[in-house]
């Protein structure tokens, strides 16, 4: 196995809870548990896919990983050596809040950064949002949109024009697009602008939040090709969030499957399909994607019911209400993520 110098992004028992609304009379609403004690390591240069149904917390997790949404509990470490990470996790688990943990946190944790140093780190952590129609300021020219990150991070003014031109070139747009407003572009072109803005400062980590779900099939192919080319050329690390399993399998080296705020399976992309030890939810996801091949018509694997409310997640295993193999113990104890093969984790009592 390759020796890892640094773990680029590491979530350690990361939890996010949104408080419920206050009511005029009586108790406030119950809080929404967006995600709960997530442990996730992203290595430099890899693409981690994050799949799950809408409302399972994948976008919130993506935003929390780059500290756009402060988590309720837990920590996100950035560029941390593995031994320091293990030490930090051990110290957290022991509950000892000694000076050593605080030292690691101050040095590596995004959550504990002061706002000034966080701002410096921001240029290495970028995000491309789902909807290219609302992610661009309609009153700014493309030139200004692309120059804004350079302005914020003190790139000398003389370089702006050259760098924006290079950016446009890299995402397949032309020089005359500089002087246009976002509304003059099609969805695919806008998504290219969003990507250009995200790569403007050569970030090390980009969260791609459903970058193609607002686009058509033919344009989706163009954008996916562009992202793969950028990854080849820059060795940028991606977190690729999508509900579209085929797209994630095409893009990602490793895939994490989320269900109702929990990672239920994580492992290499090729293991997702082939491994005998799969989470029943992963199986259902794979079985319900319609294959574009009329010669293999199989009745989809149907999951009964719908996603439960994140306000009142089921006890024990959160998937048990829809799981075909659920038993009594699933309601009582929550299954931990267990390593079945090297690097392949599944959270199920029976797999």
């Amino acid at each position, binding site marked *: 196995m390759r020796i890892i110098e640094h773990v680029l992004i590491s979530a350690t028992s990361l939890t996010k809870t949104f408080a419920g609304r206050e009511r005029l009379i009586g108790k406030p609403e119950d809080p929404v548990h967006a995600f709960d004690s997530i442990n996730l390591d992203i290595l430099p240069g890899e693409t981690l896919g994050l799949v799950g149904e809408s409302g399972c917390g994948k976008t919130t997790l993506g935003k929390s990983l780059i500290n756009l949404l402060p988590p309720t509990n837990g920590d996100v470490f950035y560029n941390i050596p593995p031994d320091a990470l293990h030490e930090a996790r051990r110290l957290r688990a022991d509950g000892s809040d000694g000076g050593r943990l605080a030292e690691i946190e101050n040095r590596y944790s995004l959550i504990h950064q002061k706002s000034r140093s966080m701002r410096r780190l921001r240029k290495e952590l970028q995000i491309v949002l789902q909807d290219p129609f609302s992610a661009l300021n309609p009153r700014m020219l493309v030139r200004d949109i692309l120059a804004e990150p350079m302005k914020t991070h003190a790139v000398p003014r003389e370089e702006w024009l050259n760098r924006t031109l290079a950016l446009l070139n890299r995402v397949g747009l032309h020089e005359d697009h500089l002087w246009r407003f976002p509304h003059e572009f099609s969805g695919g072109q806008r998504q290219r602008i969003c990507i250009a803005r995200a790569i403007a400062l050569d970030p090390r980590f980009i969260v791609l939040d459903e970058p193609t779900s607002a686009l058509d099939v033919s344009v989706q192919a163009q954008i996916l090709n562009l992202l793969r080319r950028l990854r080849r050329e820059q060795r940028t690390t991606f977190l690729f969030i999508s509900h579209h399993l085929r797209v994630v399998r*095409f893009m990602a080296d490793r895939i994490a499957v989320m269900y109702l705020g929990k990672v239920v399976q994580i492992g290499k992309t090729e293991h997702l399909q082939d491994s005998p030890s799969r989470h029943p939810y992963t199986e259902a996801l794979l079985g*319900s994607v319609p294959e*574009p091949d*009329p010669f293999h018509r199989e009745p*989809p694997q*149907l999951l009964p019911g719908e996603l439960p409310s994140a306000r009142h997640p089921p006890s024990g295993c959160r998937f048990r209400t829809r799981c075909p193999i659920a038993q009594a113990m699933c309601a009582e104890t929550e299954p931990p993520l267990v390593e079945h093969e090297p690097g392949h984790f599944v959270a199920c009592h029976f797999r």
Partner: protein
Amino acid sequence: MRSEDAGPAQSVNQDSIAARVLDLKDLRVHFETYKGTVRALDGVTLDIRTGEILGLVGETGCGKTVTALSLLRLLNTPPARILSGQALFDGKDLLSLPPREMNAVRGNRIAIVFQEAMSSLNPVMTVGDQVAESILLHQRESVCDAVEARLVEGPALSLWGVSRRRIFGWAAKRYRVQPRSLLFRVLERVPILRRWDTPLREEALRRTKEVFEKVRLPEPEAALKKFPHEMSGGMQQRVAIGMALSCNPDLLILDEPTTALDVTIEAQILQLIKGLQADFGMSVLLITHDLGIVAQTCDRVAVMYAGNVVEVANVFDLFRRPLHPYTVALLQAIVAPENLDDLQAIEGSVPDLIRPPTGCRFHPRCPHAMDVCRAVKPPTTEPFPGRTVACYLFPEDENH
């Protein structure tokens, strides 16, 4: 009622439409906008056969939904303008039918389910009342008959004079014949008399419950009293499908029924649609942009590009050997996870339909474009039996 009122529509050779539910010919629709005239549909020709699921695929803005809406005459004119075209349904041209007769077809014999169930349901009515309303409107006669038959059996006189059952039964009988008569218009306006139709509503709600059972809504009895916002997207879509099916239509149009839903729910809904189609034997026009759904669900496929139907084929033929260059490109752009190379994307983007390309509208993106493609729009040919394509690469086969 259905076959009698042939109305002013022209008579058609019965043989040619024997196996077809709907025959759409050369439909041209323009939209007048401030920017100019959008040439949305440029001669769409399509036929839907009895008992089949026809898939209509294409990218955003290619005219799939406009085709469906103009069939049902649901487009606002203006801005829309139907320049030419014929939609033969049951020997009648839907596009020239008088409004009253169109109302008898719309919702009753051709029903539609829209993409977003949330916005197609009324937020201030319970879903039960909504579906019951459409049943009462379209199936007035059979509902009235059922109510009358049930009530007339009661005693003719009660302690207080004429029995209430008799009065309600008589009202149902009258309503069946003349729903817009002065009597009912008056009853509608007098608050305490407005309840004359209670038995009709009860009957319609009973049928609604049956419909909800057919679309497998959990707890159909409780669902009747729910408002749309109390249901999830999948449940709302089931209600919308139920409403469309409540009148046993001959043709059901599904406009991207699962696009707003998650994969696991999408699988449930598609399974439901296939099951219902097999049970009811109706024809289905399934509009989608997902080729996976097409492959798994449809019998035949029509591919649309920029307001034209470029290819129609059996689903197996289409996936085995696509003919039109656009279909070929579309199939190649599907993400195959096993594929380690880059995808073969279609270069360029969908044309602006205010100034569409001359000739074949696909020629600026087509790898095989010839001079003739730029000049003249290719005619639709039938190179193989049962397959039509609009491309110069496939001239008409002389042998058949």
